[in-house]
């Protein structure tokens, strides 16, 4: 019986310096898979490398040998001696490995729980593994199940619900104020990575128009070009405050760029339309008293960080629910894995045939009842011997493959060919009624 083995390191077990060694090269997945193929002990292999984790997932018969081989492979790839990093590795076997990979795919093992990128990264890595023909029956099933688990976790829990980055938190707050960002106008004051990120998120969430304002007009033009926004000069600030619904400010100014009086003056002209101000700058750009004005909401960087802290705690709570889903799916996978050997496959093949025979006898009961008992017996013998003969060769074939490395493929094919995994969503098994009117 082959074993599933997972060896890896993540942001918790290994320092970034070490992860860097293994993860910097963009080609390293292919390289690792190539090296794995040369190892005789590895039957199937999958290699994942992101900035927060390096994982090797293999299927092998000889556990100890395979483990050593993979560890030395990691050492070879990073050009570091094994004893320097072996303490940072974790190793999981069988169902623990399955649990681990399901958790990783569902983003339960991520630095920021619930972050969506990891699933895409795993999908890419899996694609690479199939391209290199390193993924076989077990890993194919395992990875597809992992995607399925991730999807369930995402739809059944609120783990990706609340924003955990500054820019997403800003978008979320904007939605709580305006409901729909469509048709809203953004004013971006100054420049800077975080402000631009927030602006970009607002734009992708439906904001219709954006204006960029800067002390130096050239810089405003430059930033505006990136977003397809319109640049304006600094003197127009009050006029722009009148038009905007959302203001993102991030300048290097040491004084307040927007004061309470300034906002108060435009409020009447705005006819009380709500105004959402996001102040990302340190020192702050917007006078804090602005928040006290009616229908004006001001959030500075610390406020946004506070929001994020709350949301992170909330995700932690949702992770408990997600773990329950993972364990459920692990049990299902274990059940499938157990069927993947010769005897259970033959048993289910026979019982499937028997079920078909019974069903067909049931259908023809009225016709058969008219026969005499010996005739009826003859029909039954006839039917059963046909079924036996039909199944004889496949069964002999499978028995002959026992112990061979290609066995899993044949078992899998057999199970698919005869739809033996009934009630399983990936194998919609149905007995197709034979059309008798030929």
């Amino acid at each position, binding site marked *: 019986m082959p074993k599933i083995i997972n060896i890896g390191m993540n942001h918790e077990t290994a320092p970034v310096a070490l992860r860097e060694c293994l993860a910097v090269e963009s080609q390293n997945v292919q390289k690792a898979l190539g090296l794995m193929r040369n190892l005789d002990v590895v039957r199937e292999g999958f290699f994942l490398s992101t900035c927060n984790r390096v994982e090797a997932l293999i299927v092998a018969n000889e556990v100890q040998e395979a483990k050593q081989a993979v560890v030395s492979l990691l050492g070879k790839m990073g050009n570091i001696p094994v004893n320097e990093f072996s303490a940072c590795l974790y190793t999981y076997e069988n169902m623990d490995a399955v649990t681990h990979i399901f958790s990783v795919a569902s983003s339960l093992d991520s630095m920021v729980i619930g972050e969506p990128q990891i699933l895409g990264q795993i999908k890419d890595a899996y694609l690479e593994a199939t391209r290199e023909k390193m993924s076989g029956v077990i890993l194919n099933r395992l990875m597809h199940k992992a995607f399925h688990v991730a999807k369930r976790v995402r739809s059944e829990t609120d783990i990706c619900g*609340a924003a955990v980055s500054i820019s997403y938190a800003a978008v979320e707050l904007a939605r709580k*104020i305006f*409901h729909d960002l469509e048709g809203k106008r953004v004013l971006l004051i100054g420049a800077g990575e975080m402000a631009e990120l927030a602006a970009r998120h607002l734009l992708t969430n439906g904001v219709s128009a954006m204006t960029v304002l800067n002390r130096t007009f050239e810089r405003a033009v430059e930033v505006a070009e990136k977003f397809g926004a319109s640049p304006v000069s600094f003197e127009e600030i009050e006029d722009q405050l009148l038009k905007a619904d959302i203001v993102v400010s991030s300048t290097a100014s040491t004084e307040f760029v927007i004061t309470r009086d300034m906002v108060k003056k435009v409020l009447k002209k705005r006819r009380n339309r709500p105004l959402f101000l996001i102040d990302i700058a340190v020192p702050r750009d917007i006078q804090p008293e602005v928040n006290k004005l009616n*229908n004006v*909401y001001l*959030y500075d960087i610390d406020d946004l960080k506070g*929001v994020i802290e709350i949301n992170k705690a909330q995700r932690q709570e949702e992770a408990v629910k997600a773990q329950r889903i993972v364990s459920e799916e692990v049990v299902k996978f274990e059940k499938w894995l157990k069927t993947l050997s010769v005897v259970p496959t033959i048993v289910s093949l026979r019982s499937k045939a028997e079920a078909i025979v019974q069903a067909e006898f049931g259908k023809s009961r009225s016709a058969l009842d008219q026969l005499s008992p010996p005739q009826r017996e003859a029909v039954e013998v006839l039917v059963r011997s046909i079924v036996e003969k039909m199944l004889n060769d496949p069964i002999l074939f499978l028995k002959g493959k026992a112990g061979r490395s290609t066995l899993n493929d044949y078992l899998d094919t057999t199970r698919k060919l005869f739809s033996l995994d009934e009630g399983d969503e990936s194998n919609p098994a149905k007995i197709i009624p034979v059309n008798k009117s030929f």
Partner: protein
Amino acid sequence: MEAITSIWFILALCFELIATAGFIVYIIKQQKWVFTTSYWLLAAGFLFHTIFLGFRYYSLGAAPVLDLKSALSFFSWSIIGVYLVIQARFKLRVLGSFVAPLAAFFMTISSAVPGTQTPVKPIFKSLWLTFHVGTVFVGNALLAISCLAAIMYLIQERQIKRKRFDTFYGRLPSLATLDNINYYSILYGFPFLTLGMIVGSIYAHFALGIYWQWDPKEVWSLICWLFYAALIHERLVMGWQGRKAAIMSIVCFSFLIFTFLGVSLLMGGYHSFGNMGGR
């Protein structure tokens, strides 16, 4: 007859109370099936309530609003009816968690207040009364919902302003949505109130020979009407929205409740329950 009627009342009360409990569980647990169940329980309660009112109407020969018990139950019925329509339109699940308790509250009080058994005066056996009361109560129910939306607005606004979020934050909709519900329910409720007052005065002309006689209820209704008119004016002309409008609509509604209950109970006049039923 009386026994059957009271069975419908009890059924309506029970269903509305269970639905209210369901809506409260919904706002805590946030499970959709809890909402759906509560919604249909409330709809069933509304149906029983309607049957009850039908029986009452039939046996009295007049709209069943002539004593405190009936008026409260009728108000509760109007709130639920208006809510069911609004829910179909806005599909805002959390609204039920605010509306159902209010309706159930009035219904519970109604069940606790003793009814009067005096025969109905002939002037009340008129379609004008039904029309007058019907329009006024639909208006009142819409204005009640605008008040609830205003309360929800203030809860949500406070959280966003203070940057401290509790469980309500995720469960309440956006400020814009709440402001819209507040605005539109006033915009639709106000004409009903106006129409109800006009119909009432025509009815008074036929029944009492005078359109307007400065009865306390009439005066207070006029005050409410002026307040709501001012609020709509401020919204349309001055662009009021958000917090100020929310507070104002709560103030307006408290006047309305006073007009509905306070005046009828405390101040006498031909609208008071004492004079209508003759306790």
